[in-house]
């Protein structure tokens, strides 16, 4: 430590460059990191700012009223009265359908990949499931319109209507195959790889001794899975579901292509509807009035709020889970 600059042979100009370089690099990286925070804050500010006139006009009633009446000229009854009730219903209904299909299926895939699949097969299927997540939503939407919707119209919706038609949500099949239900089914395809890969990783993280212990006690594979694996990863599975929900709520493109852009609230899932995200995709570029644009920004604020709540909940669960696991080991 007593080495002088002369002894180490490092010229003082180099030491100056070193010190400056350290400062410069740490400052640049800090600025870049702060930029991420600035962007998030700016997104929230800009959306609320754009929505402000709509927020002050309609208040919280916007959330349950479902009039959506854009008008470029005055004099029309209810002109420029907006509410997102129908859209929130569409977002919730499509996401619920997606989760109802994707959560059980995704967890089953996770079980297969982490506990049942023979090594070689698992190593092939795992990346395939992840590739499903890489397919852009616009292509799933295209496939949904031209391939899935006709099948929905001719086969699946009539079958569901025949069997479960006594429940009002399974009303008469839609004439085109487009509607809330079809949108939900395609959303399920998008959510599935998220839930499958998270639950696979969760199940792999369960300590081997616990699994072997259960098997050694004479439990069958399924009893081991139910009692040890599923039980110990439950919070993680909830978090995975919430992350899937986050994906489903925010999907605009495929939903726009498949939901049929309806404007009437309907009990049947086979009818047209609309969601927050898809209404944004349809109308932001061509609003008829500044009030309509403000109402659309209000929709974006609602969507943003839903996403932030959902994401923060998932993170809290994960953090809680990690802490608990830390105690366990």
């Amino acid at each position, binding site marked *: 430590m007593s080495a002088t600059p002369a002894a180490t042979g490092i010229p003082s100009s180099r030491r100056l460059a070193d010190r400056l*370089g350290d400062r410069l690099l740490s400052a640049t990286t800090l600025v870049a990191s702060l930029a991420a*925070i600035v962007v998030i804050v700016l997104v929230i500010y800009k959306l609320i700012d754009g929505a402000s006139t709509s927020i002050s006009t309609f208040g919280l009633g916007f959330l349950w009223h479902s009039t959506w009446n854009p008008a470029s000229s005055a004099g029309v009854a209810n002109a420029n009265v907006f509410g997102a009730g129908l859209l929130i219903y569409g977002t919730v209904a499509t996401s619920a359908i997606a989760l109802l299909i994707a959560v059980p299926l995704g967890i089953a895939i996770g079980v297969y990949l982490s506990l049942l699949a023979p090594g070689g097969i698992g190593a092939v299927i795992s990346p395939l499931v992840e590739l499903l997540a890489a397919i852009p939503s616009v292509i799933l939407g295209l496939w949904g319109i031209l391939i899935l919707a006709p099948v929905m119209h001719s086969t699946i919706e009539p079958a569901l209507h025949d069997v479960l038609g006594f429940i009002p949500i399974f009303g008469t099949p839609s004439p085109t195959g487009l509607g809330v239900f079809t949108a939900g089914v395609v959303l399920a395809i998008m959510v599935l790889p998220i839930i499958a890969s998270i639950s696979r990783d969760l199940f792999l993280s369960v300590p081997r001794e616990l699994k072997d212990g259960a098997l050694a006690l004479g439990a069958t594979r399924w009893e081991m899975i139910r009692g040890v694996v599923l039980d110990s990863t439950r919070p993680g599975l909830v978090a995975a579901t919430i992350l899937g929900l986050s994906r489903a709520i925010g999907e605009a493109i495929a939903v726009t292509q498949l939901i049929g852009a309806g404007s009437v609230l309907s009990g049947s899932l086979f009818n047209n509807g609309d969601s927050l995200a898809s209404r944004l995709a349809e109308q932001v570029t061509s609003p008829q009035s500044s009030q309509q644009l403000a109402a659309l920004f209000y929709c974006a604020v609602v969507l943003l709020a839903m996403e932030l709540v959902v994401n923060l909940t998932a993170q809290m669960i994960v953090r809680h889970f990690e802490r608990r696991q830390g105690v366990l080991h």
Partner: protein
Amino acid sequence: MSVPLDPARPLTATGGNLRRRRRVDQTVRGIATLAALVAVAILVIVIVTVASNGASQLSISFLTKDPTGVLGAAGGGIASAIVGSAMIVAVATAMALPLGVLIAIYLTEFSKPRTARPIRLALDLLNGLPSIVIAVFVFGLLVEGHQQTGFAASFALAIIMVPLIARTTQEMLRLVPQELRDASHALGISRWRTIVGIVLPSALGGILTGMVLAVARAAGETAPMLLLSSIFGVGTTINIFGTALPNIPYIIFSDSESGFPSDHARAWGAALVLIAFILVGNLTARAMLARQRRRIMSR
């Protein structure tokens, strides 16, 4: 776990019970296997439909000609959209790559836990933002009151890409052994020279992988295109700051909603081009990632 252990009962299960347990076990295993097959089947069905419908469209002229611009007419290609998509994604990458890498360097090399937390939170929240919300934000910031530009779309894509690039880069930087940094420090080499000269080069392959994945993701993003770069002419242009650029995702979107069979055909063709690009990107990234991990770990 759900049945409490009764010490009085014999440890061996009785015959009927055992058979029932085995049946349940086999049923559940069958269901799980079936579920995995369903996922693979969906992937295969989607890719095969796109490939079989798109292949008949694919030709040299489809890739090198501009659209005819005549409503519902057959013929013409998607050259302008390929060029436009490439421009938009390239500019987005040029913005997102340095930013994402710098953030990752800060988080792994400089930050303390207390300063890292809000930045990680911001990255997670950015990652969780739906692309349509980012698109509406950029619409309000750059397009409202002005006009659509390809750059606005690039800007939105960059916001989507930054958290992805930051995350993979962070993972790769963490894989670089601490001893490498310590050895460098012990030789009296300053921090920034260590990072620029030793840490980053070791992780370079992984950073490029992250970039490829982010590019593959950005290339398919449609919501930003719809709001920020959807009103364009038919010709090829690279004037990214002046006008909206034609792009592949928007072509697929608008043609999918059209009633003309010729538009559907073009949508399938464009979808095949896009999906091929994305799958190749993903598979390359996957291969690179596996190699990179092995290389760093074996040091």
